[in-house]
């Protein structure tokens, strides 16, 4: 991938920073289809009190709405869509992306605690899983240092919305 193709990952850092300011784990995510952003999401676990509200899940929902509004076949769209996220998607999100048949995942740093693209399990490219969907092409370690830096800030600053802070990613 050329440097221009990595622009969206730069934008996810800005979204992640906003999440951090809102007391969420700093993760931002973009879904790009043929050069167009069709889904955006930042971590919203604390504000929804739902531990599954990861940036990827929110971005997916926006993209599904986009498909619906434009009356497009979602399977066809996702098979040509790339996801950009500053941290490796977790096992849950990797499972979700697999179910949707997404083409490619470009991410920043590894997710040592929950990663589903190799860190804990490799749901993204496990031939056996995913309802017969093709494996996801993963591009790891893009701007990894910046991602780690941002996460460190979260751990350092702690989470104002959670009196008993647990990092839910």
């Amino acid at each position, binding site marked *: 991938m050329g440097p221009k193709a990595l622009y969206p990952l730069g934008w996810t850092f800005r979204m992640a920073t906003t999440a951090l300011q809102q007391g969420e784990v700093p993760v931002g995510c973009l879904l790009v289809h043929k050069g167009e952003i069709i889904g955006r999401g930042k971590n*919203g676990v604390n*504000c*929804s*009190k*739902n*531990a*599954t*509200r990861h940036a990827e*899940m929110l971005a*997916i*929902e926006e993209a*599904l*709405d986009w*498909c*619906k509004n434009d009356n497009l076949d*979602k399977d066809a769209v996702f098979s040509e869509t790339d996801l950009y996220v500053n941290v490796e998607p*977790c*096992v*849950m*999100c*990797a*499972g*979700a992306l*697999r*179910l*949707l048949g997404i083409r490619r995942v470009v991410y920043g740093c590894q997710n040592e*605690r*929950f990663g*589903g693209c190799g*860190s*804990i*399990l490799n*749901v993204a490219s496990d031939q*056996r*899983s*995913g*309802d017969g969907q093709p494996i996801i092409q993963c591009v790891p370690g893009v701007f990894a240092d910046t991602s780690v830096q941002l996460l460190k800030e979260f751990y350092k600053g702690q989470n104002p919305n*959670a*009196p*008993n802070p647990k990092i*839910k990613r």
Partner: protein
Amino acid sequence: MQGKNIPVPVLNDVFTKPISLVTVYSAEITDKKETSRLIKQLGELFPLTSLSHVKRVKSSEKIEGKQLQIILCTPDQLENDAPCTNIDEIFCTLPDFNKSGLGKLTCSKVPEYQPKTRAQFIEAQKYWPTAFHEDKELSRLLDGTFFSKTEVERINSYMNTALSIARRGGKEGALSIGAVIVNPDSRDIIASCYDIRQVSSNPLRHAVMVCIDLVARSQGGGAWNIHNTPGFYWKSPTCEALIKPDSSSRETAHHECPEAESSTNETGNTRHSPQKSTALVDDADQSNEPKNLKRKHNDEVQTSSYLCTGLELYVTQEPCVMCSMALVHSRIQRVFYGSPHPDGALGSRYNIHYQPGLNHHFQVFKGVLEEECKQLVTGVT
């Protein structure tokens, strides 16, 4: 062992797999008076650090009396890679070692790991004596006595609720998969729903994902606009908020809650209308309690029952990897499911509930009303 209709634990295979063996060098003790000296000196020369669960000496009954065998060392404790054929080769670099009392060199198989279950322990003793600390809970899980008869009835009744909601889903044109999340201490149903992946525009709205969002809704959160789905239920957040604060508002709680609950028990699938919830909140706000204090209580309620901590899930079909990991994120305590699924992640494809590296593990039981749950699935496809 396990009788019919008893929930089957989905255990880490370290508890169910056969024991593995490794080879060690050993010898018969021909002069029993030398035994304690040999144990002491061999323990210093060749400590069994990687096999600390294995006893140094094995005593076996023979026709001609008791026979003792002692472990000399493991092959990797010797510098020479080539296999030893006699006792002198073992001690060739230790000329001072007193070999008296030791018979011919033999190779013995010993258990590689400490047995974790009684069955593994019995198997291990056939080879060499080992230490064993019985985990009582694990033993009860394995021999099918973990749940009392009453508890099995309770489990089946919650699965029946999951089956009803699954059938309701089928009637609404959705997939017949039902999920119920329960507080086992209060016996309250917190949320129940069916799978809407096929009837909504979001293919990720599996029964478990929906149920988790309804639990969030019952705690004053929630993200999906699904509360008007026919048949869905979630416990009103206001009851919790009213019960929790001490003395002054507890009275109110007792007046308000039974009414709210009875309205849900009639049909078992009535939902709390948002209007009603708002009304209860307004009532509460009009109490004498200062507003800021009230707010604090609310926050306490929400954090103490945050997500699915301490809660149980009953689901008719084994959850997929996405849903299983969502349960990890939500800190569920226990999962009961009916029928397994080839892509399931709680025993079939993966074992997310005891996946190494994850910070939360939970108990899983399968085979709860399995026949009824299987019929649901074959009914749809």
